[in-house]
């Protein structure tokens, strides 16, 4: 889940995620995960842990779903698949662009790509599905 609900998401803040842009017309969101030593997975290489990238992709994909919704509704991630294509480079921020390419009454479908500065040279790609909940509560 991610931004768009009007309140601060503690875990997004803890990761240091920055919202770069939300484009409602394209149902698209772009986030950045600034490089931070506390998020490193391998101290020998300084490469960020996959878990931090999972957080970036989940948050950004959720924001793309919010961008696709006509009005705010709670959402819940159903599943998320992440393919790690190559390691990130130490010291460099990671960007994520996510699109909600299909939305129905109950379910939204997203794809996302994480990269340093060239989307054509991705670090990770992802597909996700989200449940659109009723305002009364998250029901599956």
């Amino acid at each position: 889940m991610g931004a768009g609900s009007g309140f601060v998401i503690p875990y997004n803040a803890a990761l240091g995620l920055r919202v770069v842009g939300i484009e409602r017309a394209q149902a698209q969101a772009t986030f950045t995960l600034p490089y931070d030593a506390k998020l490193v997975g391998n101290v020998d290489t300084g490469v960020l842990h996959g878990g931090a990238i999972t957080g970036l992709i989940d948050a950004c994909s959720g924001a793309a779903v919010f961008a696709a919704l006509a009005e705010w509704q709670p959402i819940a991630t159903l599943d998320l698949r992440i393919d790690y294509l190559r390691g990130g480079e130490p010291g460099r921020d990671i960007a994520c662009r996510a699109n909600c390419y299909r939305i129905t009454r109950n379910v939204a479908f997203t794809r996302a790509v994480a990269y340093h500065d060239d989307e054509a040279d991705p670090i990770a790609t992802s597909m996700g599905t989200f449940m659109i909940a009723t305002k009364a509560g998250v029901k599956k």
Partner: protein
Amino acid sequence: MTLIERLAEAKRTGDLQTLCDVVPYSRFLGLSARVDGDELITTLQFADHLIGNPALPALHGGTLGALCESAAIFELLWRAETAVLPKTITLTIDYLRSAGPLDTYARSIVTRQGRRVTNVHVEAWQRDRAAPVATAHAIFLVMREEPRPAASS
């Protein structure tokens, strides 16, 4: 010592917590590991910064994904004779229930140990193990990746 040497040392001495502590991100998340019977249980200790939905409140999906991926890596480091850090190729997380502001536990099953890749299934739960909050399956590269030879014409 390199990371792999420190992990090998931790394995020799049975010091599971070192598995977590040598990874900065694991400390940030608040992971710990213990052996219970013949199972390696990884715990994500609840903390406010793990919240993804303050209204419910519920843990952020990213924290559960990270718990599952980490639990699978700890399992491989603990059980397998690996000279390299397992590299995640693909990770798929199914979110089954909203995870409340509680500690979350995970255990992994190696479903196939290959020479080059290993498949792992992970389950994560809170109060009731029979009602997991998330399951995941992950595929890891467990060998050093050599540069791909150039195609010959």
